[in-house]
Every structure is written in structure tokens, then in C-alpha cells.
């Protein structure tokens, strides 16, 4: 389906334009920049809604396609379009961006206009990553994302922010430049920069493996997978709350999306050849990183490690498909794994955002993220405690919340591949519950920890609004995930059929 007006372009450029305006508004009247930013964020979200309502879930074709020549001499097009895989992620982006703007409302006093502008611009760029169908356009958005994030962590971050942000930038830059070489290489063999043309490009196994490794470097760093995850705890701990939310809720998803859009369909044989490696890395992330999370003293670090463990489920779901397909069980098992990974991505987007916002609420009041500094918060902040306990349950994968759906689907798919994979993956239900609930126990329950805690005030309306909207999203997705699964069903099925056919 092609819309009568360029919705995707609007969703990309509206926030970027808004960001430029907010930047121009300056810091003389901070409230003007804040309201301006909020208006643009809400407007962008509204503009992105037709992507859902006008979406045709019965086809795997790209929809809302826009195509115009950009650099004709290199066959690069301004080529946008979405399918069932990218559409939910775009809506996730526009939704979370509003919350991030609201969450930074009074908290950010230093140069609020630059803060808001950075988030708005990043929103547009991230939507661009999900919507780009031209490899070079994708790459431009992919890299451009780094600049605002670099600034956000570095300017508004914690004490060790410079180390964290440079590490973040260099890690991701390192990962992605090799992908650039792979893209150029494929351009020479296909004569086109279109991602869909790459899907049908014949490549021999050696080429596929090299290209797969180049993609893996880019996406594994972004996801992040063990052992290239070490930038994430640093970045999360030092980033301001909004930065952590965007990082966890959306940026990590871009890595997962990359696997679905590039690695799997372009190099199916290499993916199949190296699936043991990815599955191994994913299981290490799920089990080992889960235990690492258990011993954290810093709340943000704990949630960061829990993010890595949860993203391990995503990659596990994607690559378990190859083992299942080797047994000719395409229809149910492989699709289930991929769908589970996708649901896990969206769900983790909500839950991790909520968890970081909860920590942000505490941090704004006490300026500490250490678990030991808290205790008995429920006595002074009952409303907040209710939210925090709810989101912690969701993070632990309680049935009825969205956290359960994705994990359950992936574990179910793993059973079709190998009992032991499923067994190891399922340990997260215990470990995940252990680290999350233990943290909640130490922070929320018990005796009031100190005088400072006793003086805490409960959440205000602004914070309540942000947390409520996320709680609703988590519940709805947990109880009734069908709409999400429906929109991506056909696209995933098509993808699975594509990767089941060897390119050799």
C-alpha cells in the first residue's frame, strides 16, 4: 500500500525539524523549549499512528513506500518503506520519545533546549533506521544516531560520563564501519544499494561468512551480545534517565532489527553455519549475565545487565530458527522463535524504559543509585512502590505482563530445537526473578533505610502519567498480544520462507 502523503518522511523529519526549532529557541525561556519539544513529540506520535491503522497485515510487501533518487551516481535512493517487522518498532520509538521528553521536564536544568533537541533529532533518526530500505540510507541514519547520544551521555550524564560516552561511541563505531565495507562489497556484486536486492543476491559460503561476521560486529555490539556488551553498563549508569531509556528501549532493538533485516535474509547459509555460535553467545548472555546482575549494587547497572540477558532471548529466538529448520519444521517452530524474539523486543522496550524511569524517580530525589542507600521506600512512596513492584514483576516475566509472552514463546521454540537450550533459557525465570525481586525487596520493602528516605515525596502527576502509560502498555501486551503478533505474522512467515532457501 502506498499512502497519498509521505507519512514515513513526516515521521522522520518532523522531529528533526522540531529539534532544530527547539535548539533555535535557546535557553532564555526553558519552558518554551520544553513545550515546543513536547508538542513536536506528540505530533510525531499522532502522525505515526496511521502507520498502524493503514497497515495491511495480509501482505509481506513493503508498505508506505517512498522512493526518490538521492545519489544517482551511486544508485543510492531515498527509499523508505515498512513491513510488519519495522512498523511496531517505529511506533515504539515515537511512543517512548514522548515519555522521555516528559521525564526530563524539570529534572534537566542545564541547557534544556539542547537536551530536548537532541532527543527529538534522535527520534527522527531512529525512525529512519527502521524505515530505510536503501542500505546507504540505513547506514547514514544508523551512524547519525551516535552523535546525539554521544552528546546526551557526555553533557547530562553522571560523574564518569566522559569515559562512558567515548567508550559507547567507539564501540558502536567499531562495529559499524565493517558493516559499511560489507555493504559496499555487496553493492559491487548486485549493482544496487537496495536492501531487498541484497536479499536475493547470490553469494558463496565464504563471502556469506565474511559478510555475516561484518554484520555481526555491528549488530552484536548494538544488541549488545556477550562478550561485546561491556559498553552498555557503563553507558547506562552514566547516562541521564532519558538517555538510558532511549538506549534500552530503542537503540538495543536496532541491533535485533538489523539481524532480521540484514544478517538472516542476506546470509542465510552463513547464519545456519554459525548458528551454534550465536546461540551459545545468547545462552551465555541469558545465564551468565543473569548471575552478574544478581551481584550488582547499583540499580541502573543491575537493570543494564538484565537488559543484556533479555536481549539474549531475542537473538536466541532468531537463531534457534535455523536448528529447527534443519529438521524441516518451518511452519510452527521457526516462526515461533522469530516472533518470540520480536515480541520480546517490543516488550523489553516498555519494561526497561519503565525500570529506568523508576530508578530515575528515585535518583532525582536522593541522587544515589546504590541499592544500600534505600530501603522501605514503600512506607513513604506507596504509589511509586506499586509501580516499581509491578514493573519488576514484568521484568521477571510474570504471566499477564508482556515480559512473559516473549520469553515463553522463545522457550517454547527452543524446546523444538533442543531440550537443553530450553532448559538453560528457562533458568532465567528463576535468575531473573531473583535479581529483580531481590532488588525490589531491598529498595522498596523493609524498614525505612535512613532519614533521607523518610523524607522522600511520592511521585507527582508528571511521573505518574509516564509510569501509568507504560504500565498500561505492559499489561495490554501481556494479556492480549494478538494485535502485535498479527501485524508481523505475514512478514515473519515470509522471512522464514526466504531464509529456508539456501543461496548456494
Amino acid at each position, binding site marked *: 500500500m502506498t499512502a497519498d502523503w509521505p507519512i514515513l518522511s513526516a515521521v522522520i523529519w518532523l522531529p528533526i525539524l522540531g529539534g532544530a526549532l527547539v535548539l533555535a529557541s535557546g535557553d532564555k525561556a526553558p519552558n518554551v523549549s520544553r513545550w515546543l519539544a513536547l508538542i513536536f513529540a506528540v505530533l510525531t506520535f499522532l502522525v505515526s499512528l496511521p502507520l498502524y491503522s493503514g497497515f495491511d497485515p495480509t501482505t509481506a510487501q513493503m508498505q508506505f513506500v517512498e522512493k526518490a533518487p*538521492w*545519489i544517482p551516481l551511486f544508485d543510492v535512493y531515498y527509499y523508505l518503506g515498512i513491513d510488519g517487522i519495522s512498523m511496531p518498532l517505529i511506533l515504539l520509538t515515537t511512543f517512548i520519545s514522548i515519555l522521555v521528553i516528559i521525564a526530563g521536564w524539570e529534572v534537566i536544568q542545564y541547557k534544556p533546549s539542547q537536551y530536548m533537541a537532541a532527543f527529538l533529532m534522535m527520534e527522527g533518526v531512529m525512525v529512519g533506521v527502521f524505515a530505510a530500505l536503501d542500505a546507504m540510507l540505513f547506514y547514514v541514519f544508523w551512524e547519525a544516531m551516535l*552523535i546525539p547520544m554521544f552528546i546526551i551521555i557526555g553533557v547530562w550524564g553522571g560523574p564518569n560520563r566522559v569515559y562512558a560516552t567515548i567508550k559507547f561511541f*567507539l564501540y558502536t563505531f*567499531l562495529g559499524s564501519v*565493517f558493516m*559499511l565495507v560489507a555493504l*559496499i562489497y555487496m553493492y*559491487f556484486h548486485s549493482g544496487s544499494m537496495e536492501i531487498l536486492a541484497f536479499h536475493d543476491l547470490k553469494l558463496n559460503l565464504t563471502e556469506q561468512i565474511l559478510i555475516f561476521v561484518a554484520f555481526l560486529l555491528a549488530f552484536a555490539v548494538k544488541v549488545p551480545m556477550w562478550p561485546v556488551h561491556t559498553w552498555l553498563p557503563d553507558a547506562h549508569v552514566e547516562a541521564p534517565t532519558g538517555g538510558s531509556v532511549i538506549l534500552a528501549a530503542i537503540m538495543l532493538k536496532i541491533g535485533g532489527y538489523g539481524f532480521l533485516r540484514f544478517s538472516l535474509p542476506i546470509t542465510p547459509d552463513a547464519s545456519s553455519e554459525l548458528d551454534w555460535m550465536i546461540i551459545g553467545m545468547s545462552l551465555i548472555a541469558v545465564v551468565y549475565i543473569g548471575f552478574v546482575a544478581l551481584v550488582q549494587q547499583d540499580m541502573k547497572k543491575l537493570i543494564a545487565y538484565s537488559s543484556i540477558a533479555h536481549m539474549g532471548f531475542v537473538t536466541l529466538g532468531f537463531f534457534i530458527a535455523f536448528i529447527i529448520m534443519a529438521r524441516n519444521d518451518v511452519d510452527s517452530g521457526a516462526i515461533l522463535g522469530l516472533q518470540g524474539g520480536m515480541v520480546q523486543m517490543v516488550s523489553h522496550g516498555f519494561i526497561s524504559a519503565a525500570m529506568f524511569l523508576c530508578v530515575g524517580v528515585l535518583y532525582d530525589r536522593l541522587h544515589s543509585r546504590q541499592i544500600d542507600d534505600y530501603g522501605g521506600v514503600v512506607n513513604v512512596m506507596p504509589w511509586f512502590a506499586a509501580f516499581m513492584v509491578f514493573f519488576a514483576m514484568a521484568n521477571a516475566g510474570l504471566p499477564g505482563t508482556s515480559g512473559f509472552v516473549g520469553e515463553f514463546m522463545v522457550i517454547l521454540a527452543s524446546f523444538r530445537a533442543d531440550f537443553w537450550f530450553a532448559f538453560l533459557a528457562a533458568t532465567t525465570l528463576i535468575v531473573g526473578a531473583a535479581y529483580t525481586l531481590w532488588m525490589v525487596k531491598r529498595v522498596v520493602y523493609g524498614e525505612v533505610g535512613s532519614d533521607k528516605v523518610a523524607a522522600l515525596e511520592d511521585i507527582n502527576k508528571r511521573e505518574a502519567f509516564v509510569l501509568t502509560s507504560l504500565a498500561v502498555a505492559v499489561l495490554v501486551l501481556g494479556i492480549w498480544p494478538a494485535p502485535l503478533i498479527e501485524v508481523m505474522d505475514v512478514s515473519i512467515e515470509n522471512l522464514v520462507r526466504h531464509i529456508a532457501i539456501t543461496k548456494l
Partner: protein
Amino acid sequence: MEYNLTTLQPVLPEIVLLCAACLVLVVDLFLSDRTRLVTYGLSLAALIVTVAATQYAAGPVREVILDGSFVRDPMADVLKTGLLLVSLFAFVYAKDYLRELGAFRGEYYVLGLFAVLGMMIMISANSFLTVYLGLELLALCLYALVAFHRDSKTGAEAAMKYFVLGALASGMLLYGISMVYGATGHLVLPEVAAVIAAGTADQTVLVFGLVFIVIGIAFKFGAVPFHMWVPDVYHGAPTAVTLFLGSAPKIAAFALAIRLLVDGLGGLLAQWQDMLIILAVLSMALGNVIAIAQTNLKRMLAYSTISHVGFIFLGLIAGTDKGFSAAMFYAIVYALTAAGGFGVVTMLSRNGLDAENIDDLKGLNDRSPWLAFMMMLILFSMAGVPPTVGFFAKLFVLDAVVSIDLVWLAVVAVFFSIIGAFYYLRAVKAMYFDKPLVDVPLVSSLDTQVAMSVNGLAMLAFGIFPAALLGACRAAFGG
């Protein structure tokens, strides 16, 4: 050959600039220090009029005049326009700096204009003699410019080093030229090429000459291992001179390489390809790694220049029209970026104090958010991060390298560009994450601010719409 004025039309831009430079020289003699702005205004006007003359003389057809020693082709048109515009930016940035230094004298602009003339002659050279003529005109002006601030010891030292090493390199180049002349019996480049293509020349002498010519080119570019002069000269020269020296001559050096290696010695592609690969890899490696250790901003940018030269060579290595146009794109973009980068350094230098260290960038976002934003665009462009134009410059040369199946070279290049990203990030960090060391507000005149805004936003504009400039570069190589 019939000789009348109309046949001189291709050389019109050079004639215009020569007359204008002489005019500025004479008018400046009659000006007092208070009316020195007239010199500045006249110099800018001279550049603008020359741009107009270049556009007037431009055309798609290649024209050769003056007994084959001068050529005007689409490549020359684009390079000259780029060169003049970059020089225009450099002249504007220099003004405030020179006034603060108490060195706002006409010499800077007169020497600058003659240097531009020398570069234009290099760009349009079609014989070994014209190449050398343009090169020496440029070099002599630059030697004098580096020593321009009489009271500065470091300036004098830098000029001395530059002069000695530059003379040595010119000698090498001349020696190489004489070898090739001996082997082929021609000075006009296409005729040299014809003899080489016919295969009648002595291959040993040719390659021997080629080695010296490549050394001369590498020196002018500042490629490793002929880079020794770059950091010292960039550091020692007054920033206004570094600004000029570090930007426009890169375009001329590119033209020098194309005229000599492609127009003249294109038949020896296989030989010079290997030499340039070594130079390129060494330049990217050494430039990027050593830049990390620098605390002086000018030295850091000098080493960064060396690494960028490696990237320009990548485009030449491909030996295809696509590669040459990619290298041309890179050279023009880099000259513009470097002008902006050094321009910010000159704007930070006030009250006679040179802002030379990375620490001087600290807190720029607090002192002047707009200037910090422009500098950020420039630094990210140098690092090659989209959506700035530096990314496309890198993309196109990488593409050229991959197209001749040198994927390993592309991997080496991107690897060193990651290392390079670190020191650019450190500069961005100083601007945005650190508190200012001094709280003096930044003052600069309106023309400087406008030029800086145009320059910075050009990084973004060419980054979002690279097609036009790339198209012009491709057209220059008949694509």
C-alpha cells in the same frame, strides 16, 4: 600559430587574478593601518571576480593553449572554483586574528593571492614546466607567509624547516622530471603519455624518474614518510597562515597528482599504484595514531591532515575515473573542512594569545553554542560520521578501492578511521563536556560569523545532498 587575445580566454581567470593581485599590492602601499580594511575588501573582491571569470571561461570541452603548456578542462574549472572559495573563507577568518596579533598587513593578502595564482597554474598545467612554475610560485609565497609574523621565533623556525625541506622536495621532483624528459624527449604531458603508451621509452629510466616524481608529490601532500614538515609548520606558523596552508593547497596537490601521474604517467599506473598503496597505509596509520598523543590543537589537526592524505591517495590508487572523482571529492571537501576547523581556532585566539591547545576548546558550548555546534559538525565530518559530508568522502574512496578488489585496503582504512575518531571525539568532549577555563565572551566580526556558519552548515548540506558536488567531480573525469 595565430596569436590574438581571444585565444587567451581559457587563461582568463589567471590573468584576472594576476592583475588584481598587482592592484592590491600597489593600492596597499598607499594605505595607512587604519584603512587597511580596503586591502582586505579588495582581496575578497579579487577572489570573487576570479570565480566569476572561472565560470565564464568554463566549458565541457578541453582546451589546450600556449603551445600545449596550459590546459583548461572541466576538472580545472571545478578545482579552481573550489580553491578560490576555500581561499575566500581563509581570508575572512584571518582578518580578525591578524588584527588582534597586530599583524594586519597587506602582505598576508598579497602573498595569499599570489599563492592562489600559483595553485591555479598548477591545476591548469599541461607540461612539466608549467607544473613546476605553479608549484614554485605557491611554495615561495607559503615560505614567506609562514615567516610572516616577524617577532615569532617559532614562525621563523617553521619557515626555515619548510623552506629547506620544500626545496629538497622540489629538487627531487625536478630530478624525476628530468629523468622522464630524458626517457621520452617531451615536456608536454599528453605527449609524454603517448611515448610511454608506444612503449619506445626506456622503462628503467622512466620508473626511476617516476619514483622521484612520486616523492615530490608525497612531500607536497605531506604523506608519510615525507610528512616531517607538516606538524612543525602547522604548529609554528601563525594560525591565520596555517589556516590557509592547511586547506587550499590540498586541492592544488590533488591537481598536481592527477596532472603528473594520470595525464603524464598514466601508462605507469601499475608502478605508482603500489607506491601509493604504501604511502596511503603509512599515512593513515601514522597520522591517526600520532594525532592521539597531541595536546596541541594545531599539531593534532596537522596529523589529522596526514591521515586524510592517505584517504585521498586511496581514490587515486583505484586508477579509474570513479576513483579519481572520489579523490577529487575528498580533496575539495577536506579543504573546506580544514578551513573551517582552523577557522574556529583563529576565532578562539584573541587578545594576541594563540588558542593552540585542545584545552582552549573547553566549555565552548557554554561560551558560544553556535560556534561549538559548527565545530562539532566540522570535527564529525573529519571523523567521517554521517550525516556530515566527510562520511560520503570516505564512502566514495572506499567504494573506489573495493571496486578494484582491494577489500583488505578498505578494511585497513576503516580500521584506522576508528582510531582517528577517538581524537576528534576528544575535541568534541572538550567543547561540550568540560567547563570553560576562561570566561571571556567570544567576540568576532559579522563577516567571520557568517563565513563560519556557511562553512559549518556546508558540512551538513553537502552531507545530505552530496549528489551535486559528486556529479561535478564525476563530470570532470568524463563520467
